[in-house]
């Protein structure tokens, strides 16, 4: 039984209102033309050489069960928006973060808090590498990000 109709729309409307008022530094709204798909840009604020002077584009996809169900969040590649290098980010933009998984998600999380978590996930990283098996995964994976059963072996990264 999904939540009452309009639950997601109402909540996203209010999130958008807040986002238009203010966003933390390094996070910018690119577009939110409906309540299904939003794009945001994030930047790392410190001088981590892996991400210095780069901006990354995030795509949020919301189901009608948001925020009871997590949004689908991936990095998207554009000429001026690379996929950040990170041991938990596949080169096709899929992110392995427990916060975004079925188990780790909590409905008190929101678009802003997810962006901030990703910012700090990048800030804290020192490894210039992709997840193990990146090439195979990117070639073979046909699952939606939320259906992938990631093994969160290291929550500190």
């Amino acid at each position, binding site marked *: *039984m999904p*939540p009452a109709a309009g*639950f997601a729309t*109402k*909540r996203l409307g209010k*999130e958008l209102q807040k986002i238009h008022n203010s966003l933390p530094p390094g996070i910018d709204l690119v577009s939110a033309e409906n309540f299904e798909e939003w794009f945001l840009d994030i930047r790392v604020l410190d001088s981590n050489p892996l991400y210095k002077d780069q901006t990354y584009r995030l795509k949020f996809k919301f189901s009608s069960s948001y925020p009871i169900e997590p949004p689908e969040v991936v990095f998207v590649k554009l000429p001026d928006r690379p996929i950040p290098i990170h041991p938990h980010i596949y080169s096709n933009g899929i992110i392995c973060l427990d916060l975004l998984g079925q188990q780790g998600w909590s409905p008190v999380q929101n678009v802003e808090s997810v962006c901030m978590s990703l910012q700090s996930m990048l800030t804290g990283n020192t490894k210039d590498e992709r997840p193990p098996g990146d090439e195979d995964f990117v070639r073979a994976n046909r699952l939606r990000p939320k259906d992938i059963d990631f093994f969160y072996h290291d929550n500190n990264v």
Partner: protein
Amino acid sequence: MSSKAVLLKEDGNRHFHSGDYVSAEALYSKAIIADPTNPSLYTNRAMARLKMNLWESAIADCNECLKLSPDNMKAHYYLAQAHLELHDYYDAVEYALRAYDLCVKTADKSLSAATALVLRCKKERWEHQDKQRRRETRDLEDEVLAMMERERDAALRGEEEEDVNALGDAGGARTEIEQEWERKMERMRTVFDKARAAEEKRRKVPDWAIDDISFGFMHDPVITKTGKSYERSSIMEHLRRSNTDPLTREPLYISELRPNLDLKQACDEFLQENGWAVDW
């Protein structure tokens, strides 16, 4: 229920779902003739009549249903909707609250919808009161200004009478009186305008009244073991999916939720004065 009534009802439901409310209403009517003792036939017809904007006859159906089944949630829900359309805001709020309580008591799946209905009724009641207050304030302003004009005119007449008796700088005194009253009336208008502007400016919803899951204004906050409160319908939705505390991810069960009565009262009181907060 007689099998004939069952068939008519099912046929009615089919028409209702395809958007043919007129046929659905007619079929429910036939079903009621076949079996006048089934409460759900009345609420189904009420639902069709609401779609047809037949508020009064929808209310009649709900009342018939309540005679047969006094704790029927749907009847209260539709009564609230119909009364809202008829601008009977006070009845609408009462019926919506009753529908909400019945949802909680019977763990009905319509809890989110009932929460939204309660808030909508309260908001519309407030808007109605607010309009009334504004009208009264404007009337009062007009009345006070008219009184001041009368006072001014009386003062001017008194000055004219004095002029007849005594020679002097009559014109100057007249202008002085006129100017003095003009100043007073201007100040009066400013005071009223300021009061209206101040009311607009106060429009900020306090964070404590906002549910962190739906981001909506809270109607029935319940508190978890960690001391954080959520709207009952929101946390129920979450717990149906995952028995975890949203903040700590520790195990949390529906049976562990407790009403937060003080916060509920604070929210109620805030909403009484600030009905706009429903759509902040």
